[in-house]
């Protein structure tokens, strides 16, 4: 105690100094508005920093609980996303979504847009009339497609109209198709009856595919480029001679209400086909 008193007596001026400085500080920050405002903002910043540090420390310790909550929420959201995706797929598949994709695919080629002015689906040999003709650049044997997929082939052309043989023509329509992603090809044929069902014939027996896969044009003709949608495989049958498969295809194009079509007028398809034909002819001649 005596030592403490001695210490206090020896260094008493320190305490007086500190006291006076504190008093000056109080006066300075209390009665000078500028210093007061600077002090307040600095104090706020300092307090804010300390609070932030404190909350950082506390939040670190509660991380495991937050982690659990996040994992639960994640699972719930993932479930919801997959449900919504399924619902969306059910509502939009083979309609708008497919249409947009098909139109985007077709837009890489030269197209002549047209409207269907006459159409039949109940006959065995149906025909379709569109409102574009020679004057618009349409020629015979040009392919016709729509946003949902394949429509048919131009048969007759006048100045302003054209007659199209649709896929729903039992005697004249034979479009070369292939299974998307697999490459196995055959020919699309319609036998009448249901206007939404056709058959792809001559698919080899060693072909590997699944039900539900898409069928598209093969590109082996001068009429359609490869990749134009035809339909979806619904059933598989053996051919009459048992040497190949016959695929029952649900056509993607609804021929009963097709209105807006486009005529594929890309010359490169015809040029390619002509070159292939010339090569075949020359090989045949050499063999003879």
């Amino acid at each position: 105690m005596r030592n403490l008193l001695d210490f206090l007596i020896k260094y008493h001026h320190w305490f007086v100094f500190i006291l006076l400085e504190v008093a000056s500080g109080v006066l300075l920050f209390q009665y000078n508005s500028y210093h007061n405002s600077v002090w307040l903002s600095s104090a706020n910043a300092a307090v804010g920093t300390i609070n932030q540090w404190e909350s950082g420390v506390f939040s670190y310790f509660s991380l495991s609980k937050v982690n659990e909550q996040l994992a639960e929420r994640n699972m719930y959201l993932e479930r919801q996303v997959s449900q919504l995706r399924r619902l969306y797929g059910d509502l939009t598949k083979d309609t708008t979504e497919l249409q947009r994709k098909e139109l985007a695919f077709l837009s890489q080629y030269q197209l002549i847009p047209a409207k269907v002015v006459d159409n039949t689906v109940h006959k065995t040999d149906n025909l379709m009339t569109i409102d574009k003709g020679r004057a618009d650049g349409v020629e015979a044997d040009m392919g016709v497609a729509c946003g949902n997929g394949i429509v048919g082939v131009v048969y007759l052309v006048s100045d302003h109209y054209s007659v199209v043989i649709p896929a729903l023509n039992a005697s004249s329509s034979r479009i070369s198709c292939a299974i998307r992603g697999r490459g196995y090809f055959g020919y699309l044929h319609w036998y009448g009856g249901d206007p939404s069902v056709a058959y792809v014939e001559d698919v080899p027996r060693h072909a590997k595919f699944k039900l539900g896969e898409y069928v598209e044009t093969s590109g082996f003709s001068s009429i359609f480029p490869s990749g134009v949608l035809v339909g979806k495989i619904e059933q598989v049958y053996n051919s009459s001679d048992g040497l190949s498969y016959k695929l029952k295809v649900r056509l993607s194009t609804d021929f009963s209400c097709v209105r807006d079509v486009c005529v594929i007028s890309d010359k490169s398809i015809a040029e390619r086909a002509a070159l292939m034909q010339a090569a075949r002819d020359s090989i045949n001649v050499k063999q003879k």
Partner: protein
Amino acid sequence: MALELLNRLAMFLALFVAQVLILNHVHLFDVATPLLYVYFAITFRRNFPKWMMLVGCFLLGILVDIFSSTPGLAAGCMALVAFAQPYLVERLASRDSAVDMEVSLKSIGIGKFIFLSGVITFFYCLLFFAIEAFSFFDWLVWLERAFTSAVLTWILLMAIESVRSK
């Protein structure tokens, strides 16, 4: 001691009046303001009771502040200078100097007095204008004001001291 206190009181009042009535209105080139009252802190003798020095300087500072509308500014700076002055004097005092040596031109010599007064004045002005601005954004302006005010204060201080010493 009583006489000494009276002398100190007289200096206190003289410096206070001079500062408040005359020197506070001097702004040379819009930057230099003489802060002559720091002379009060410089001239305390060696081994003067430190608490008295502190209180005296603090009171002088407070009075100047009241008339300058800057409560706490001069008071805080004067208290700091009063705290530092004894240590500086001890450094400058020779071994054979008296225990209650006066701090003046005659007693410690011109060189040491110039050094002591220069250091304290300059340090005081730096501190004063730093706290007044409370920001180092315009540090050049701060240095300019501190330096010019210190020079002016020191010139006045030396003039008074030379008259006192005769």
